[in-house]
């Protein structure tokens, strides 16, 4: 396959879902079966993605394919020089991997939704929205510049908003949609600022050109500090989209949307877009920015994990675990475990989509019951759902033979190595703690849902295994949660093609002294790097590789022990009931409440931001009513007073003057009328008198 053909294929993958969206949206009301068309489109897209990924990863493994054109040419602007905006497509390894994940999960979710959404009155519109989401997500993945990423970023936000609020008659759903949109906007503001800093500095949105200029030593505002700030600002977009602390509050609420949507958008793909963004801009991140990213990732991994321990809504637990896992990825990127973080993005997409679809299956079977305290014993009724759910739970807990074990272990290993090289052991420590928590809350969820005795007999009696179109995606995703697809050795992911050949850490472009020591290239510091070899790795120094290697076995063993411990505790608490959970929670009531109430984030934001906004609004309304209206009213009454005065002036002075002139004329007329008799004789008398007088004057 030639390169132009691949570009065309990428364009097809990008535009087909858009076509599906347009057709489904406009014909949806007339043709009831239009969703079949949308389904056909997404299968076609997936086929295209598979082809593209296959060709790219096999024949163009080390070549990135770029196609670009100048969208707007501003010409030669004074003081700025030649300025234009290029748009284009970049097909590289991470893009095709991502696109494979996105289209695959999107297709499975489409298929799952056929049964899950059956009977919804906006059935076709639902599929249309899925189409536009797939389109936007594909756009983010394929672009080669910041501008298009931002455009598609917002489109993704829009489709997320539409799908969260899909059941908009429900107030909580429409509120959740708004919340997601607004919270995302906060992050996007930072991202936009970062993009604009880059554009003002480099006059281009294209990644490769920006990177080239940075590596040539051209920095924003000529300072390394501002390069760090730019990195952090762009990361703000990821904080919003990937629901990282402190903007994570929208994701749990987003669970108001239909469950397949949660699987597609709020677990597997869209929230991964934030991670993908960091991956894209990774070369320009300085050590300061990376440290910031790692800290945010760590907090996002830890806090939601503690919240997930006590939640009773099946989807809420999964939502918090999603945030936690995304935090892992972000932390992984922050500590330099680039490949593992992206690897975790892929594996997590599969097993988290599986968890959500499984929960969808359960919810569907239980007639939209989401409270796990009312479930239980479903194992016998839904064996297939249980089996796949179990596989996914094992994967997310990091049990060997699953994909989650490989990727999560890699991140933990990376944070261990990071700790040994820089002394920041906290990331590794928290990473392992979260691994323990994850294993515990996932198995708590599993046990409460599927094991034990049914707690709501009525609903239990009506529960049933899902139909084929819902079961098939579960099986596919469960299969993808097994190690075999990624590496032949279940204990060493680095033996698989995905980590050795496909995902390649990029060459950093930041100045040498802004990098971590272990990321410095072999060139002695101070000298300028001349050329950047194509597709080269981050030049990790020797000791990093060594540290990573040394961390491998301990990290693996430790994570295994902790995951096992978490699962064991879950079984002790909920399966065998050796410990009275209620008594235990009572003894640590404050901690329990903190977790149960989600660390009071919503209340805090309510008080600070919503309350603050309200207070500001009240103040502004008072200001409006008192000061502004006062000014307006004041000027009005001033005008009125002035008008009255001018009125008076008009009536008295001007009119008086006019009247006086008229009166004067009248008066003069009265006098002179006497002289105008019309009789010639009178005139003659006047003439004669005048002459006589003149004679006396000029004698």
């Amino acid at each position, binding site marked *: 396959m030639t390169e132009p053909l691949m570009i065309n294929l990428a364009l097809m993958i990008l535009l087909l879902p858009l076509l599906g969206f347009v057709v489904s949206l406009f014909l949806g009301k007339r043709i009831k079966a239009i969703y079949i068309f949308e389904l056909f489109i997404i299968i076609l897209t997936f086929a295209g993605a598979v082809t593209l990924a296959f060709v790219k990863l096999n024949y163009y493994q080390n070549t990135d394919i770029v196609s670009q054109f100048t969208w707007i040419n501003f010409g030669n602007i004074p003081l700025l020089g030649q300025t234009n905006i290029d748009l284009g497509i970049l097909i590289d390894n991470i893009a095709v991997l991502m696109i494979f994940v996105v289209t695959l999960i999107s297709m499975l979710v489409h298929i799952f939704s056929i049964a899950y959404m059956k009977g919804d009155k906006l059935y076709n519109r639902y599929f249309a929205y899925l189409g536009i989401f797939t389109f936007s997500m594909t756009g983010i993945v394929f672009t080669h510049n910041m501008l298009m990423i931002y455009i598609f970023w917002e489109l993704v936000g829009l489709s997320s908003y539409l799908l969260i609020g899909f059941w908009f008659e429900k107030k909580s759903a429409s509120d959740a949609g708004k919340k997601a949109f607004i919270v995302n906007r906060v992050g996007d503001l930072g991202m936009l600022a970062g993009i604009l800093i880059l554009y003002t500095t480099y006059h281009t949105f294209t990644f490769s050109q920006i990177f080239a200029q940075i590596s040539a030593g051209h920095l924003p505002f000529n300072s390394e500090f501002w390069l760090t700030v730019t990195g952090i600002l762009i990361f703000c977009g990821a904080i919003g989209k990937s629901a990282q602390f402190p903007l994570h509050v929208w994701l749990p609420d987003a669970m108001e949307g239909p469950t397949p949507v949660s699987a597609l958008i709020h677990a597997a793909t869209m929230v991964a877009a934030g991670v993908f963004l960091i991956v894209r801009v990774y070369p320009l991140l300085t050590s300061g920015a990376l440290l910031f990213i790692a800290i945010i990732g760590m907090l996002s991994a830890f806090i939601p994990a503690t919240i997930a321990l006590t939640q009773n809504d099946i989807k809420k637990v999964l939502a918090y675990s999603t945030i936690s896992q995304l935090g892992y990825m972000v932390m992984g990127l922050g500590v330099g475990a680039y490949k593992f973080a992206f690897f975790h993005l892929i594996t997590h997409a599969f097993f988290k989509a599986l968890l959500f679809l499984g929960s969808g299956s359960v919810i569907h079977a239980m007639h939209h019951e989401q409270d796990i305290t009312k479930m239980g014993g479903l194992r016998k009724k839904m064996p297939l759902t249980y089996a796949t759910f179990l596989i996914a739970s094992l994967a997310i807990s990091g049990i060997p033979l699953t994909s989650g074990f490989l990727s999560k272990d890699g991140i933990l290993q990376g944070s261990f190595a990071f700790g040994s090289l820089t002394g920041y052991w906290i990331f590794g420590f928290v990473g392992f703690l979260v691994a323990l928590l994850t294993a515990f809350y996932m198995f708590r969820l599993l046990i409460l849902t599927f094991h034990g005795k049914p707690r709501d007999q009525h609903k239990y009696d009506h529960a049933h295994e899902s139909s084929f179109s819902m079961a098939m995606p579960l099986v596919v995703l469960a299969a993808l949660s097994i190690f075999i697809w990624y590496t032949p050795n279940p204990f060493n992911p680095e033996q698989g093609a995905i980590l050795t050949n496909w995902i390649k850490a990029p060459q950093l472009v930041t100045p040498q002294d802004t990098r971590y020591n272990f990321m410095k290239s072999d060139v002695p510091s101070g000298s300028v790097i001349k050329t950047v070899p194509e597709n080269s790795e981050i030049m990790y120094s020797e000791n990093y590789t060594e540290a990573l290697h040394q961390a491998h076995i301990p990290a693996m063993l430790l994570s295994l022990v902790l995951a096992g411990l978490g699962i064991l505790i879950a079984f002790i608490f909920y399966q065998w009931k050796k410990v009275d959970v209620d008594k235990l929670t009572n003894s640590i009531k404050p901690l329990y409440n903190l977790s149960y109430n989600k660390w009071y984030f919503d209340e805090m934001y309510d008080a600070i931001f919503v309350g603050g906004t309200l207070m500001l609004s009240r103040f502004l309304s008072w200001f409006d009513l008192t000061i502004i209206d006062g000014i307006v009213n004041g000027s009005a009454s001033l005008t009125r007073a002035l008008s009255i005065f001018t009125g008076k002036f008009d009536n008295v002075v001007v009119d008086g003057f006019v009247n006086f002139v008229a009166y004067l004329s009248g008066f003069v007329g009265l006098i002179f009328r006497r002289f105008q*008799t*019309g*009789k*010639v*004789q009178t005139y*003659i*008398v006047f003439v*004669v008198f005048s002459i006589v007088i003149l004679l006396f004057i000029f004698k």
Partner: protein
Amino acid sequence: MQVGLNHFLVISTALFSLGIFGIVTRRNAVMVLMGIELILNSANINFIAFARFGNFGLQGQVMALFVIILAAAEAAIALAIVLNIYKTFSTVNVDEIDTLKD
């Protein structure tokens, strides 16, 4: 007593004043015309007087003759005007003829 220029001028002035008086006070248009004739004659007296006492040759007498002829012509025209006035207003009373006022 030597009759001099002043005597003539006084006579002429008196005659002129009488003429003006006649024009201004008389109601009848014909009488007004007679006033005009008086003024013309007072002018004639002036011409003759200045011709007699001045060093102008015969110019004064000639001018007086012209004036007499002119007076005759003027009388004819003025009487025609008076006749027309009478035709228009049915009166020759100049007090009632005040359409100049309008």
